[in-house]
């Protein structure tokens, strides 16, 4: 017998690490999360630290209105007293600078500027927030709906199962992307609506997975044993069936996040996505349509960002699938 207390999750993690690429991608996603989380510190036109009139202040971390009107760059040039430290990318994604339109990547703007003179690197960093949160919230919603309906269908079977299964089949018949487009045309584009619509249309696969897994597990002896101990139906589903049925959902969810990020980028590209003033990878791309022939960086950079992120999620999903597959265990 190998070691004590080897948790199930620890076994999966060990298996997961064998999949080298997935392991690397996992850390890449963690890195992306850090970028999204620390966006105000990474790309901001306000300095991180400002020494002024004998006082230290931290404008980048502050929401106070008094900093909003100050142009720190002008101040740095003109005033002699005091000093300031800027973030690595000293621009906000909403800095319109019409003197620097469509500049190719250079020392001032590492990834160039767009048609309104906004820094692409800053937009990319802030855009990670939209992409990641759309992915997570949308898929979280899908998982919630899918697990609930799938568990209902799988546990109770019979009429409940028939009704839910037919509902799933009806949902699958709609081409998802056009359904999302149609719904967004009614409710109007906003990050919140996009998350909602992608989430509400994406639960069918997860519901089917959970339904099948619960069908598989509900005849197991330990479920009968739980009933024999006096556990209620609700408790049996929540504590005994779902934790056992949840593994394949993780795989499906990581593929789902990749899909949701892609869907958001596609919607923004078509102009149905987030409003233009909100930085997102898709909205940089949609700008790029106009300048395709003169500004290659506008297409390439967000495109590569989307590609790498989506690939990373897919590889993590694949790694999870392999780790959870008992047949592959060595």
């Amino acid at each position, binding site marked *: 017998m190998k070691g004590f207390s080897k948790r199930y999750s620890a076994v999966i993690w060990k298996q997961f690490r064998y999949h080298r690429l997935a392991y690397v991608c996992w850390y890449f996603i963690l890195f992306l999360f850090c970028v999204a989380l620390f966006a105000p510190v990474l790309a901001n036109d306000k300095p991180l630290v400002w020494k002024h009139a004998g006082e230290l202040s931290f404008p980048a971390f502050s929401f106070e209105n008094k900093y909003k009107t100050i142009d720190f760059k002008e101040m740095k040039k003109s005033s002699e007293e005091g000093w300031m430290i800027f973030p690595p990318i000293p621009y906000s994604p909403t800095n319109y600078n019409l003197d620097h339109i469509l500049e190719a990547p250079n020392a001032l703007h590492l990834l160039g500027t767009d048609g309104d003179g906004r820094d692409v690197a800053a937009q990319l960093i802030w855009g990670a927030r939209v992409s990641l949160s759309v992915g997570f919230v949308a898929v979280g919603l899908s998982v919630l709906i899918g697990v609930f309906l799938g568990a209902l269908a799988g546990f109770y079977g019979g009429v409940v199962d028939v009704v839910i299964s037919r509902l799933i089949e009806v949902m699958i018949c709609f081409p998802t992307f056009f359904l999302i487009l149609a719904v967004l045309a009614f409710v109007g584009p906003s990050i919140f609506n996009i998350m909602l619509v992608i989430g509400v249309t994406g639960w069918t696969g997860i519901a089917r997975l959970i339904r099948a897994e619960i069908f598989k597990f509900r005849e197991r*002896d330990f479920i009968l044993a739980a009933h024999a101990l*006096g556990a*209620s139906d609700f408790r049996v589903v929540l504590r005994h069936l779902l*934790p056992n049925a949840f593994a394949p959902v993780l795989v499906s969810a990581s593929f789902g996040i990749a899909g949701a990020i892609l869907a958001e980028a596609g919607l923004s590209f078509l102009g149905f996505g987030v409003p233009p003033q909100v930085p997102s990878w898709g909205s940089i791309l949609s700008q790029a349509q106009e300048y395709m022939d003169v500004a290659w960086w506008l297409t390439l950079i967000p495109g590569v960002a989307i590609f790498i992120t989506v690939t990373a999620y897919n590889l993590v999903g694949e790694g999870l699938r392999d780790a959870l597959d008992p047949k592959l265990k060595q």
Partner: protein
Amino acid sequence: MNVLEVKNLASHFFTREGVVKAVDGVSFSLGAGESLGLVGESGCGKSMLALSLLRLLDSPGKIVSGEMLLANPAGNEQVDLLKLSTSAMRAVRGRRIAMIFQEPMTSLNPVYTIGDQIIEAVSLHEHLSKREMKKKAIEMLKLVGIPAAEKRVDDYPHQLSGGMRQRVMISIALSCKPDILIADEPTTALDVTIQAQILELILELKEKLGMALILISHDLGVIAEVAERVLIMYAGKIVEEGKTSEIFDRPLHPYTQGLMNTLPERADLRHKGHLPTIPGHVPSLIHLPLGCSFQERCAYVQTDCRQQPIPDDPCHTGRLVRCLHVPGI
């Protein structure tokens, strides 16, 4: 005093092919602290009877008639389990009547530690603090003889052997000190050497906690060792009932006699060189013949055996023997 009286219990499965009468008018009683053996071939309805006692039959199975009177520990009155609400029945399961299953390998939830599973069983019926529950879990593991219980309590089921898992199952079943323990073939899936240990453990704990035990088995050796009284079940009915010594020394029903003859230590191997069997198969529980259900396989069958249902003791043997023509009487 009897903790449980079952009267005329019938559980049927309503399948497309017809009604399967898995339990067909079973009556018996269980005294406090008594150990009762339930014997029969595979498919004769033993496990279905056990599940019926907990009202855990899954559809299409259904208890169609009968009474299951459980003595109330407070007073002398009895409650009919079949008349309880589902939530009141849940309070009975685990707390008053607990069950151990045949397959220790699949009866534990693979995603929780064994400690968590004992704690869950306790928390369903008692309210204790987290620390007390953990203490109780360790105590239960010690009770069933698991070495290094303090460490083992955080183990997952896959880290334990079959015998250890069955011990854990027993500790879960006993964690709420039930009045009745139903053990459905608790040793069938285990190694022969482990079998004896587990049986001994069940008996020892039964004495310690003062429970009544219903032991289901097709292994006559196990029954002889553990049970004080035996029910012989055939095709959904009890065909013979009596003290273990009576049944083993003087089996009366032709089916019981057939069972006893299959015991290797009783069989006369000198003549044929192979073990005796009861010819034929258990009849389909959908198309049971009129009259005695053993008629097709019985050497002593006569015309009246095929004509009417057999009463409890037609030959006045002094115990339940559902046979019109008990051989030798």
